[in-house]
């Protein structure tokens, strides 16, 4: 996506019409990110709203280093993480080390390559992940962060990051297989 400098300048001066245009351009991409980091659409919309208010309020913070889209993505991801930590304070939630291995049910092994899933199903699988797994998996797979960076951002150790990623993969694999089984049972 090409960077519209004029639109950026208009947003910088606080012009609402320009902000709306910018929102319309980038909202779907950012909403996709929010959906990956949250549990459902309502939570994702809350995060997206907060993130866009931050973006427009601090738009002068973009100094042209890197892409504008990347800058926005970082704000959205940070907002998602903050949202998680804020929620964690209010309700006790399963975090990185809280999930016991026994909770990950080991179904029969099945060749995953044979199965085909659509986007909604895969998103649902990610949303079902415990928060700790979800964050590490998203940051590693989609945002291409290194384990060292993830560890710094999430304030965990590098080994924890690695183990969370491993567990997330296993969890996703089992979830997808389970979803496939459920689909088959519905067809019968």
């Amino acid at each position, binding site marked *: 996506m090409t960077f519209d400098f004029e639109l950026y300048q208009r947003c910088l001066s606080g012009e609402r019409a320009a902000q709306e245009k910018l929102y319309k351009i980038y909202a779907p991409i950012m909403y*996709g990110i929010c959906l990956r980091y949250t549990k459902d659409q309502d939570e994702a919309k809350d995060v*997206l709203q907060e993130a866009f208010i931050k973006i427009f309020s601090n738009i002068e913070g973009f100094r042209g280093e890197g892409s504008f889209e990347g800058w926005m993505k970082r704000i959205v991801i940070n907002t998602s993480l903050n949202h998680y930590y804020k929620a964690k304070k209010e309700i006790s939630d399963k975090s990185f080390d809280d999930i016991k291995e026994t909770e990950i049910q080991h179904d029969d092994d099945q060749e995953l390559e044979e199965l085909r899933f659509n986007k909604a199903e895969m998103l649902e699988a990610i949303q079902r992940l415990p928060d700790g797994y979800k964050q590490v998996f998203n940051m590693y797979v989609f945002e291409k962060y290194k384990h060292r960076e993830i560890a710094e951002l999430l304030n965990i150790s590098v080994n924890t990051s690695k183990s969370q990623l491993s567990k997330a*993969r296993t969890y996703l694999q089992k979830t997808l297989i389970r979803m496939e089984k459920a689909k088959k049972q519905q067809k019968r």
Partner: protein
Amino acid sequence: MNEDKNYIDRIFEQELKDFAPDPGPELWAAIFAGLDAKDAAIRRRRTIIRWTSFSAAMIAVAVFLFVRSCSVNGTDSLNIVKKRTERLNLNNNSILLTANEASISNIDSNLENSISSEKVSRKKHKRSHKSSNSSALSSTAQKTKIEALHTNAASQDLNKTDGQISIETIEYRERIFLNKFFALNPFQSFDVTMDESTPYFIFKSRKSIGIQAEAGAGLMFLSVNSKPDFQYDNPVVVTAEPFNSPVSEYFLNVKLQYSRLYAKVGLNISQYYQNNNYSIPYTTIDTSGGYASFDLNKYWTYDTIGYFHDPYDPDILYPIVNPTYHIDTVGSVWNSKYVERQNIKKTNSTQRYHFAEIPISLGYQYQLGKIGIFGDMGIGFAFLYKSSGYYSDGVDYYEISKENNPYRKTHANLLINAGVNYPLGNQWNIFAQGSLRTNISPIYKAEQFKDLRYNAFGLRLGLSYNLK
């Protein structure tokens, strides 16, 4: 297994990398509202910071002036006095030096005179034959020498007196200078004397500061200083006359004066009276139009809408018809129009609003004989502490209460005063001043009138008392 994990990464990335669903149109409205709320909060914070800084600066200036004028032994006063004293001492020294040089030259000349007298007497002694004569001559020489020494002493005394006179002259000039310097203060004159125990002057009394308490009352009239942002139901409101309502006020201030400058802080209690039957004229413009038609035929048709049964003649049914008038038109044209109507909206209200205001001002006073001419400017923080009454515009009726009223709880004003004062004896002064108070921040709640502000012009009369 490891390959499976990589495969997991890959399939998720492939499927969801460019996943961009539409969040729906309602989210922008929420973001828009959030941005507006944030902007408003930022504006409010900036306004508070701006006015707090301004107030702090004014208070700092007032405190600085106060401390400066109070510090008899303060650094600034001492520095001024020390500098002038050093200059004075230099002058004195040079004068004394001149006097001493003159004295030394007198001594030298007297000594020379005595020596020459002695030489003459010795010559006379050689010429004489009698020793008695020589002693007599010698005593004459001694007398001349003593006279010379007396003359020397007298000349020294004279010189010393001249030096003292010089010092007194300089002292006098110094006193005149300082009196002139501090006579700018209209409250007091100054008495400056030399303190011999210290190398510089001190002021015997703290008379460089004036503190006054002033109280009085004023009457002002309100006018609107921004275009009203309200509209009536009619098409367009072109004009809406601003109303004028009186404001009475009482005030009590403490005035701290240093030289010609003064700072003022106090309390104003104002009552806004709005108890008039307003007839607010406004103009509406109707630009709507209508079709004018050209008629071809005008005729009636009669439609049977029922039957009437006559009980005396059961075999006959009488039809009931409905006549309808018809016009066949061959064409029509749109007639636009521009109609201005003058309207009057009548309102009936009895409203009282009580504001307490803390004014902080800085001013300047110029003394023209006994009459002082002054002007000051500052800001006031006003609080609405009481409101009562009702408002009716013929359709709706509103009770005014502390909660239900159109004004904000707080607002800030710019205050400008200019006037004259006149002393009524040693302590009392009377003053009259013209006042302008204009709202810096909106006085109305945003949901009432957006950004509607008032100007208040008026006259104040009061008395002031010199506390110091």
